């Protein structure tokens, strides 16, 4: 009989797990908090600061969505995920949005049942080696021991790259970026490989960043972006257009400093008016109020401000805009029109 009682409890658990899907927007509003999946700690992208508050480029996306939906950029519950746990966390409904420099690939989008809502960083996989190794090209890495963060597209690209160039290597799989750093610094591996932005962030955290070089080869396309579950298009639209709002705001010259002023009354530029809700009903169409985009921009600034503050050239990470500049400045950032 004891068995039956246990089974009864299991059945109830099974039942309650079954209702997880439905409307994410309603769930988030009812909860009053956005559950956002981020990395376990990658300086510049998502890491807790000295006060324990999460900061970074990906964190900015979470805060913008929370501001747009809930009106409060701090109403975010950050859930640290590893490369391995992130998809399960999203699929099971533990998190509403995953902003964890995740590469947009066909199989993740189609087979795993996720929806990438856009690209917030155009990246590519690179290699970092100690300077005194005297290596100047990834093709000289024959026989090297390579530390890889496991559960990412990185290890597949790596296998392809070494196979295509007909050179051998010794892979050392590592669970998180934090575990990889001591291994690399102690010399247990010759090379550390991950996305070039991640390498820059990791190198910035070293005691002597100058002792290490990032090799010129970029061996893959890594479009990183936030993603949501399949099946809830409204929630997907909210995340997609919040990201687009940040990108469009930079293009249109709307910043966290002037957004309040611009949103106070309709101005001359109809696109800005539609974006900020002084004209049209775009917010209503999303199921939000008219000021959603204004709040998203106010939470951390537009795309350019987020970039400069967290990973830009004046930060220790020091990434140039490169491909991530606006299309008007030769980059790839191109938001569809707000119309």
């Amino acid at each position, binding site marked *: 009989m004891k068995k039956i009682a246990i089974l009864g409890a299991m059945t109830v658990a099974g039942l309650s797990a079954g209702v997880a899907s439905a409307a994410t927007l309603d769930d988030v509003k009812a909860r009053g908090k956005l559950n956002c999946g981020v990395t376990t700690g990658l300086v510049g992208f998502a890491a807790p600061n000295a006060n324990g508050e999460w900061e970074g480029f990906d964190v900015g996306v979470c805060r913008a969505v929370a501001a747009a939906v809930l009106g409060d950029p701090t109403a975010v519950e950050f859930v640290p995920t590893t490369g391995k746990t992130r998809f399960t966390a999203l699929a099971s409904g533990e998190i509403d949005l995953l902003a964890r420099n995740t590469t947009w690939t066909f199989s993740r989008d189609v087979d795993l049942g996720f929806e990438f809502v856009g690209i917030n960083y155009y990246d590519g996989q690179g290699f970092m080696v100690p300077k005194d190794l005297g290596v100047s090209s990834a093709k000289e890495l024959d026989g090297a021991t390579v530390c890889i963060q496991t559960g990412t597209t990185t290890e597949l690209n790596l296998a392809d790259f*070494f196979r295509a160039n007909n050179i051998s290597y010794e892979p050392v799989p590592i669970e998180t970026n934090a575990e990889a750093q001591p291994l690399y610094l102690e010399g247990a591996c010759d090379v550390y490989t991950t996305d070039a932005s991640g390498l820059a962030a990791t190198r910035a955290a070293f005691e002597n960043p100058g002792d290490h070089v990032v090799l010129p080869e970029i061996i893959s396309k890594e479009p990183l972006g936030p993603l949501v579950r399949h099946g809830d298009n409204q929630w997907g639209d909210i995340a997609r257009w919040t990201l687009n709002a940040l990108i469009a705001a930079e293009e249109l010259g709307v910043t966290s400093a002037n957004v309040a002023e611009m949103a106070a009354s309709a101005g001359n530029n109809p696109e800005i008016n539609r974006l900020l809700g002084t004209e049209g009903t775009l917010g209503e169409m999303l199921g939000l109020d008219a000021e959603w985009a204004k709040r998203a921009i106010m939470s951390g600034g537009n795309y350019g401000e987020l970039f400069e503050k967290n990973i830009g050239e004046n930060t220790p990470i020091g990434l140039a805009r490169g491909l991530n500049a606006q299309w008007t400045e030769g980059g790839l950032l191109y938001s569809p029109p707000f119309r």
Partner: protein
Amino acid sequence: MSTISDPPSGSFQLSMLINDTRYRSYTFQFIALILLIIAFAYLGYNLLSNLQAAGLNISYQFLGEPAGYDINQTLIEYTSQSSHWRASVVGVLNTLLVAFLGCIMATVIGVVVGVLRLSNNWLVRQLMSIYVEIFRNVPVLIWILIIMAVFIAILPQPRDFRGEDATASMVLGSFAFTGRGFYSPAPVFGPGSGVVIAVFFASIAGIFAFRNYAKKALFDRGQLIPTLWPSVAILLIPSILAFYLMGRPITLDLPSLKGFNFQGGIFMRNSLIALWFALSIYTAAFIAENVRAGILAVSKGQTEAAASLGLRPGRIMNLVVLPQALRVIIPPLISQYLNLTKNSSLAIAVGYMDLTGTLGGITLNQTGRAIEAIFLLMLFYLAISLAISAIMNVYNNAVKLKER
């Protein structure tokens, strides 16, 4: 007497299922079984319908697709173009390798420590209790990480062997102990080496024959023939003679520093060594307690009787106490072996690619087939554990008290 409990004979009635003590328990067991089946069917259906609602399905097709990733330690041939299934098999073999090595080393350390814990020497006894208490009361994951960290920090890296002012050098010119692992010479079998190997195995058989002869001599004639040194001689001398007679057909492939790493020879990765060592010393602490309990379970009268026959303490332990203690030691030892095998799934902490690392790690991640992969993983561990139990039970039946 028997007529009292015998029920009145008559045709079976449905109410007897509840009222008759002979059938009542079956009735309830049957109802419980039905409920159990319904519950599992419901959970299974719930899973499938939820997966369907999310646009997913259960499919094992991914096992046939190319894995696309590389594995550092492979006991069978494997490339990144091999299938996910082959990657899983590589993982299974790596799991079995570290479990096998771990069980042997844990048993050796465990038995020695268990016996020494009962030593008459105060210092030895206390040192062994400290070892047992420290190692079994700290989680094994912590030990794995500590040993790996110490390993990497203390031993020199291959770059320290390089150049004019190398700070490290190879031991005897053929062994290299680096933070990445140990490199040792590998035998290369040339033509004619088959004879040497055959002679070697024949000598091993010879040792057993000699030991049997010595035992027989002892039992039949009371003649004590020394066995240790003759055994060593039988093991080595014929093989060495054959080796030189055949013109030294077996040569050594020495590891040497080429490029980034040592090349050639046998390479034992730091991850394997750290995991092996950590699992061994952790489990050995438990085995030591089993051994101590087993020895204490043998009546003191046995020891005293043996001593009164004039046996020396070492012989009392080997001939009288341990054979009897084994009956108590083996059953808990089986469960320690199972624990060690299952604990090996912590391997990914040091980057050892065991089954959890390949099938339950990278494959799961790249294909996103979490339920399928975890289910297979459970099945594999279940099969491995049951196999270990079965083998150990055969051994247990061999040593347990024979009741005739």
